[in-house]
């Protein structure tokens, strides 16, 4: 195997040459890191560094001892909202905008203060330009919407050409959502993004339900998901997020396989496959027949998936699905997410993500928390639940 170009963009990556196994290009060996690095300034939690479960314990103890309660209501106290996703990707706050709902970050213009977002996941990007699916592509459903855009995009080169120079100037990290039809597609797109100034990370879209080839086929099989993740991992040292699909029987083995293959974080969930019928016509409404369901309607499912995934992986989980208000953010944090992405709700209220940042900050002040981290994982069981002895219980 020919040695491939290796670009080191962060101090975290270690040279792998000293490993004695045959090929020069072995997967990058990663130190398993805490989902979030406790802020050095937070005295109450100093010294207690650990994984997610530890984080939950921190939360309870911080509230119990409450050494910072005198800070309650004080406006000069700075709440630490930053999220460290590893490999040098530190989000200023845990409110991101989801892929496909915010274009390339430039579309909303001055209506949205882009620099106050925690991160931007841009529209799904493929190697070659794609024209997408036939119309109609979107329709509203009760409490949600169906979309079947079909990954329309101008191709990775055009995306870099048109938008990277704008992204460089932003404080907000831009995470490029990458889609493809084959492992080599993914690898090639990522290779072209590697080292481009303005690209802060990669979100692998292995779960798009709206394209014929590629997309979903990688998300429904643990081996395929791990394969594409590992291949991309070898191609770049950019922070790597992988987006999970809910269109599977059990997401846990897939999540575990992706984490083991070297992903830095997981995002959950992509849309659920669905269909709408044109009123009065009795035929499928969407041009592509199938569409992806998003919006508040899918929140309980997304909560369940995040809850399950957060218990089986030690990498951060970013939640997506029907976030429309602060309560939704808190719910996702409770089931173990370190950050959330706002998607469909942006269409109704473009200013929502920025407002959520303010509201989360306010909520932390109200609870006298120096950081939002004690809110993470409070709904997770202390230890993995014992197998049920009742045969009738639903265990997805």
């Amino acid at each position: 195997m020919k040695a491939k170009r290796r670009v080191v963009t962060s101090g975290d990556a270690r040279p792998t040459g000293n490993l004695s196994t045959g090929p020069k290009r072995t997967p990058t060996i990663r130190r398993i890191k805490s989902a979030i690095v406790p802020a050095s300034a937070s005295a109450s939690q100093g010294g207690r560094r650990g994984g997610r479960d530890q984080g939950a314990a921190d939360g309870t103890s911080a509230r119990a001892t409450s050494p910072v309660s005198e800070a309650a209501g004080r406006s000069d106290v700075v709440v630490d909202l930053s999220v460290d996703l590893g490999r040098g990707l530190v989000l200023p706050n845990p409110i991101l905008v989801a892929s496909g709902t915010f274009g390339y970050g430039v579309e909303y213009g001055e209506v949205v203060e882009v620099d106050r977002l925690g991160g931007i996941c841009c529209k799904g990007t493929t190697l070659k330009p794609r024209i997408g699916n036939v119309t109609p592509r979107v329709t509203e459903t009760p409490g949600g919407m169906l979309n079947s855009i079909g990954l329309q995009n101008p191709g990775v080169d055009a995306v870099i050409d048109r938008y990277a120079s704008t992204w460089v100037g932003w404080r907000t990290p831009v995470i490029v959502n990458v889609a493809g039809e084959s492992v080599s597609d993914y690898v090639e797109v990522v290779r072209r993004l590697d080292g481009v100034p303005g690209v802060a990370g990669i979100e692998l879209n292995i779960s798009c339900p709206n394209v014929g080839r590629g997309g979903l086929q990688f998300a429904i099989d643990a081996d395929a998901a791990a394969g594409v993740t590992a291949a991309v991992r070898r191609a770049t040292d950019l922070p790597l997020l992988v987006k999970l699909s809910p269109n599977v029987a059990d997401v846990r083995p897939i999540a575990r396989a992706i984490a083991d293959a070297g992903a830095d974080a997981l995002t959950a969930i992509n849309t659920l496959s669905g269909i709408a019928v044109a009123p009065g016509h009795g035929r499928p409404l969407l041009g592509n027949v199938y569409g992806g369901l998003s919006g508040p309607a899918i929140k309980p499912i997304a909560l369940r998936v995040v809850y399950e995934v957060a218990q089986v992986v030690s990498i951060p989980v970013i939640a997506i699905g029907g976030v429309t208000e602060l309560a939704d953010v808190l719910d996702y944090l409770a089931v173990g997410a370190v950050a959330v992405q706002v998607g469909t709700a942006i269409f109704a209220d473009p200013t929502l993500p920025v407002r959520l940042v303010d509201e989360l900050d306010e909520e932390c002040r109200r609870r006298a928390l120096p950081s939002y981290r004690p809110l993470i994982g409070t709904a997770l069981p202390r230890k993995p639940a014992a197998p049920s002895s009742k045969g009738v219980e639903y265990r997805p």
Partner: protein
Amino acid sequence: MRLVGAELAESREILPDQWLQTFHAPGLVAGARAGQFVHVRTGDYSGLILRRPFSINTADPGTGMLTIHFRAIGRGTEWFTRLRPGDRVDMLGPLGRPFEVDPRSRHLLLVAGGLGMAGIRLLVDEAIRDGRRVTLLFGAARAAEVYPSTLLPDEVEYVVATDDGSLGHRGFVTELVPDYEAWADQSFACGPQPMLAALARLAEGRRGRLGVARLGRKRGGGKVVPAGSAAARRKAFLQVSMEQNMGCAVGACLGCVVMATSGTPQRVCREGPVFASDEIAWEAGW
């Protein structure tokens, strides 16, 4: 593009199930031009999660008043009909690219089908303000659905066609176009897609039928005008306002595209809703 709170001033049902609502939104009206639209949020946040796009039916920068004209056809539009004067809605706009009228055009032929009137109504005002002659052809299913002429300026020549012949010409509105195509310098249309496609076919054969001489240099000859630019649209005989299911209305979600002859789908909310008729791939079936 601005996000403003708009206060409902007046709401009335001008035709069966068709409503005309007047909003006070001075910050938004200031820059609005014919062909552009607003994206309005319904207040029923529990189930209706998308905004609704409406053509800017009329806009008066003097008073800051803007009207929208729509048919109550689903849960969203029905929610709007229940608004009372004084109620506020969240309005994003003006969005999209407007109709491009060549400064030299004296005679404008406007064609509207049904609710397409909402997309073209403001152009009537703008053209008359600029001293142009306007003929407006309007098609509807029957007399009861014909847009009232009292809501139009006196200066406009208003010609009606109905499918059942209950008012004006019996048949499609497109059948009236040949009587006017020699007179018109430019044409603008909004309505159902089959109507627009028929008009586009008519516009394509117009030069041949009229025997327009191809002598010497054409206006602006030699200059390369990129397709889809404002200049290219200004030169086109027919501009159409397209409709499509819409998500974000700012170009982010790529939900509302139409297939273009260039092979790249164009966003109705961003590159449109107004297109030159030869930009659209009518036969593509999108």
